């Protein structure tokens, strides 16, 4: 009996011993011995090296407890050249007092130059190295990735990590970017039925009103009017202290970037792929042309009523893609004198909005087919479900078939609400028109 209790004591001690040694043993991590990377930029360096820029958080500057920090000091950047990402990180580790850690990284930016040559080699690092998380956003910079990171300085938010996270999540209520994460990109890159996209980023050169005037003077084809979002990240008519911009989408075939979508086209991408949040969408008043100066507009908050239905049929060896998009919206503002809040006018607005957006969606899809040759809307998923065997599906070669696809788009917009006004009495109606 004594022997038994002696053994039990040893067993209990054997269980307690690991608890003591493992809590502060080989794998211990002191938070203040780490430097947390908020964002990383990758550019092409000299002699085929990578130029890696790290945007690092400075926790003391962010603020401790209730004490406010200093926005300007909240981040620090460092640039290094090395043949590989982790090689570059080792160089950085050798010269700063803390160890670089990516477990809180929010954004990876890769330059367009590198993206056009393929980014599979980087994706492997991001997916294999456990510090990179699958929910980190991935963006492609039109110009230098390093410059984009440096220009993404927070202005309204003191925490740089939260600043970038909120910025990347803004697509849910703007629809101007795709909100792509590393995990999604990787999955789509390796998929046989769709292609990958990434967020399009850039740094703005616009400093004042004169720069905006110059920018518009160069867009003579639209008569000087640009619909909201109808531009890419570097050419936005915005004057703002923070020069980092996100607008549009980088389009890929496998791991190579093949083109871009504007912010407005990204709206249509999100509509067709069923990822649209609640966006503000402006369209010219019914029966008025877009891009006409001093035209009247109707602004609608658009959301997805139902998941888009995509059906693919093969007719004469070519796919016919039928897409049904159901949207619903609230009227936010009407700049003209017509009231579209009720009755026949409401139906007119619904029909007009349906036709207008349908045409835009169709021209976006044609662009993905003819110019980009990339099925970013994942229409291939529909036909993949009709196959029984993997080999048959692979030899069907969907990406090549997509280039010959015909589109049949049905789009409906239903206006559910008209804001806090049920009707609009214009000023002429109150005082009587001068003609009377």
């Amino acid at each position, binding site marked *: 009996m004594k022997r038994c209790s002696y*053994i039990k004591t040893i*067993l209990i001690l*054997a269980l307690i011993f*690991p608890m003591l040694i493992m809590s502060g*043993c080989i794998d211990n991590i002191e938070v203040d011995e780490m430097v947390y990377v908020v964002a990383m930029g990758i550019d092409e360096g000299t002699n085929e090296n990578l130029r890696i820029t790290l945007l690092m958080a400075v926790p003391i500057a962010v603020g401790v407890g209730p004490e406010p920090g200093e926005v300007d000091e909240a981040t620090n950047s460092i640039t290094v050249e090395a043949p590989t990402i982790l090689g570059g990180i080792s160089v950085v580790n050798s010269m700063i007092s803390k160890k670089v850690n990516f477990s809180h990284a929010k954004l990876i930016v890769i330059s367009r130059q590198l993206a056009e040559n393929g980014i599979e080699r980087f994706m492997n690092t991001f997916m294999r190295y456990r510090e990179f998380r699958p929910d980190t956003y991935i963006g492609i910079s039109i110009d230098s990735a390093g410059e984009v990171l440096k220009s993404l300085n927070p202005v309204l938010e003191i925490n740089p990590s939260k600043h970038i996270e909120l910025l990347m999540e803004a697509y849910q209520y703007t629809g101007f970017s795709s909100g792509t994460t590393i995990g999604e990109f990787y999955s789509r890159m390796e998929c046989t039925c769709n292609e990958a996209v990434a967020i399009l980023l850039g740094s703005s050169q616009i400093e004042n009103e004169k720069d905006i005037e110059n920018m518009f003077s160069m867009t003579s084809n639209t008569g000087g009017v640009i619909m909201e979002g109808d531009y890419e990240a570097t050419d936005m008519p915005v004057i703002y202290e923070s020069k980092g911009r996100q607008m549009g989408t980088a389009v890929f075939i496998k791991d190579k970037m093949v083109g871009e979508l504007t912010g407005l086209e990204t709206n249509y991408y999100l509509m067709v792929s069923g990822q649209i949040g609640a966006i503000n969408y402006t369209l010219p008043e019914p029966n008025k042309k877009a891009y006409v100066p001093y035209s009247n507009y109707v602004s609608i908050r658009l959301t997805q009523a139902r998941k888009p239905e995509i059906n693919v049929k093969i007719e004469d060896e070519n796919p016919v893609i039928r897409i049904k998009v159901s949207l619903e919206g609230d009227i936010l503002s009407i700049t003209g004198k017509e009231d579209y809040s009720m009755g026949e006018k409401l139906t007119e607005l619904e029909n007009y909005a349906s036709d207008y957006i349908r045409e835009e969606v169709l021209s976006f899809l044609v662009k993905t087919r003819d110019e980009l040759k990339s099925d970013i809307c994942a229409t291939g998923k529909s036909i993949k479900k*009709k196959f029984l*065997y*993997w080999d048959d599906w692979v030899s069907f070669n969907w990406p090549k078939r997509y280039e010959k696809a015909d589109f049949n788009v049905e789009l409906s917009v239903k206006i559910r609400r008209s804001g806090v006004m049920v009707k609009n009495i214009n000023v002429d109606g109150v005082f009587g028109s001068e003609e009377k």
Partner: protein
Amino acid sequence: MEEKAKIGNFEAFCLLLNMVCAKIVLDYPRTVSEDVGSAAWIMIILDTIVVFVFFAIISPLYEKFLGKDLIDISEIALKKVGKIIIGIIFIVQFLYMTHITLREFAEDIKVISLTATPISVVIILFCIAMIVGAYLGIEAICRVYALSVPILTGALTLILMLNSPKFDISRIAPWFGLGVETILKKGLTNLSQFSEIVVLLLIAPFLNNKKAFKGIGRLGILLSGFFLAMATTCYLLIYQFPTSTEFFLPMYQMARIISFGRFFTRIEPAFILIWVLTAFLYLSSSLYFITYIFQRTFDLKYRRPLIVPFIIILFTLSILPENLYSTLQIDMQIYSRFSWIIAILLPLILVIIASVRSRKNKEAGNK
């Protein structure tokens, strides 16, 4: 003292469920998708049906030997020498199965958590828990099972359900994956994934209600098949073939991508505890069975003195594979192909032979 051990029905069921399903938290969803592509779930369902049929054949035959374990049955079937040979075969089978699993669990922990700790230290930590479990015996282990398995099952279901917003049905198309022929061929070797059901024939004498053996086995097989199929299907609904063949730890990967808003993210550290608990239970019971079979095979009076020698053997075997890839190869190329012959086919043959022998003996006795 141990011979008096009593196991309740629920405890036995939990033991069976954890022993078969522990591989879900290892690499099971990946290996099956590597075998048959997007149709892995079909193969698992077929395997479950086949194992269920095997059990349906074996259980009525075994009813004649209630209160006897597999070693007793092998003695009835093949006499004393046969018993020793069969015992050694099962000891080797369990040693093989346990050392791979020990190494794989240790590698998991090293990859996802204790990255700088030497693998031998991680294995030693598991060994300590195994010694404690095996020392306390099957009754204690089964009681911990009864407490832990509902939590583990809930946690696994939670991981799968929290991933549901990311499910996409097109990812498990084409429906027959790499082909019907491949499903059938690979399905046969994948019967090995149910090898652990053999423990039911080892714990049978300890069951409180010995007649419940049949029910425990049936429910255990069906629910194990259900969880194996569910975990694999959910994994494939998120990572389509061939991406599904890339990740070392499918469940960890699924836990990593769970996010609800900005607040409910990074929940995988909580699941590490669950995985470790699964590992401790699986490995402790495996070590117990190794020592139990050895004791019964060689008619030894005591079992506990065998624990330390066997843990040393297991530790040594587990650090033999040169790297993680070698461990996975040993598992996939050898164990997964042939284990079912020993764990499923051999007990069936033994029970049939023992039934025939005992009937002949009875007839001879009557004459």
